[in-house]
């Protein structure tokens, strides 16, 4: 697991107040929404803020979100390709 994957899991747990969850409990390919982690629409907005705040990535097309926020793997891939910090 890359540092970015671990960093993302830590940020998600902290930002989304998943207090009962440990980094080791989130699988890299687990769905973040729906029957995976069970995140909701407000969490999606928080993830958009997280991308901008931590990696300088501003999502211009909201429809991209569905693909990017599918799992930790898809988020990490997108960040690696688009990060400005």
């Amino acid at each position, binding site marked *: 697991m890359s540092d970015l994957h671990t960093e993302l899991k830590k940020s998600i747990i902290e930002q*989304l*107040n*998943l*207090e*009962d969850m440990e980094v080791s409990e989130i699988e890299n390919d687990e769905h973040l929404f729906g029957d995976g982690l*069970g995140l909701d629409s*407000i*969490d999606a*907005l*928080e993830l958009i*803020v997280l991308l*901008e*705040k931590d990696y300088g990535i501003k999502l211009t097309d909201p429809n991209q979100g569905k693909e990017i926020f599918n799992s930790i793997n898809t988020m990490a891939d997108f960040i690696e390709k688009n990060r400005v910090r």
Partner: protein
Amino acid sequence: MSIELSIINSVTIRDSKVYKNGQLIFKSEPDLVISKFLKGIYRDQNLKYPKFFKMDSLSKFGYLGVEILTNANIQDKETALIFANSASSLETDEAYARTMAEFPSPSLFVYTLPNIMLGEISIRHQLRSENIFLVSEAFDPALFIDYSRGLFQQEKADKVLCGWVNLHNNEYDVFLWEIARSGGIDFNEEELKKLYLPTHE
């Protein structure tokens, strides 16, 4: 026509302590930060509701108060909610305002109304009932009595949960009670003040 109503349960959360029907059921060390105090109650009550951690502190107080008041079980889904406070959602409004300088927080924004607490309680217990959140300068028994009587008289509810849930500047004052047509102490201004005041002064 005036009808007789009864207070069948009450909960007070004040000064790092939780009382149910006058009995101390939880106590934390004094001066604990509010988030830790709230989490302490949650753990002590052995509650399992991950959404709790996403709520703002005001909603956490309301949620915890209702779980304790009802033993985490509201069977009558028409149970009405009448809540009030004096500070509205100011604590969260201020926290949200602070985030606006950089990245406004969506998860704080959704709690910038006090009646969101009633939504949280209704979602938790799948209530499809009447509810209202009032803002008044101080705890006013007459306000609750008038609204409750109205709901019973119009047969809109057979049970009502009332709550004074106030939080501002890290000071909290939480008092909840359950009203039914019979089975407890009389629901009137005098009894309500007696229940509210003992640990308040």
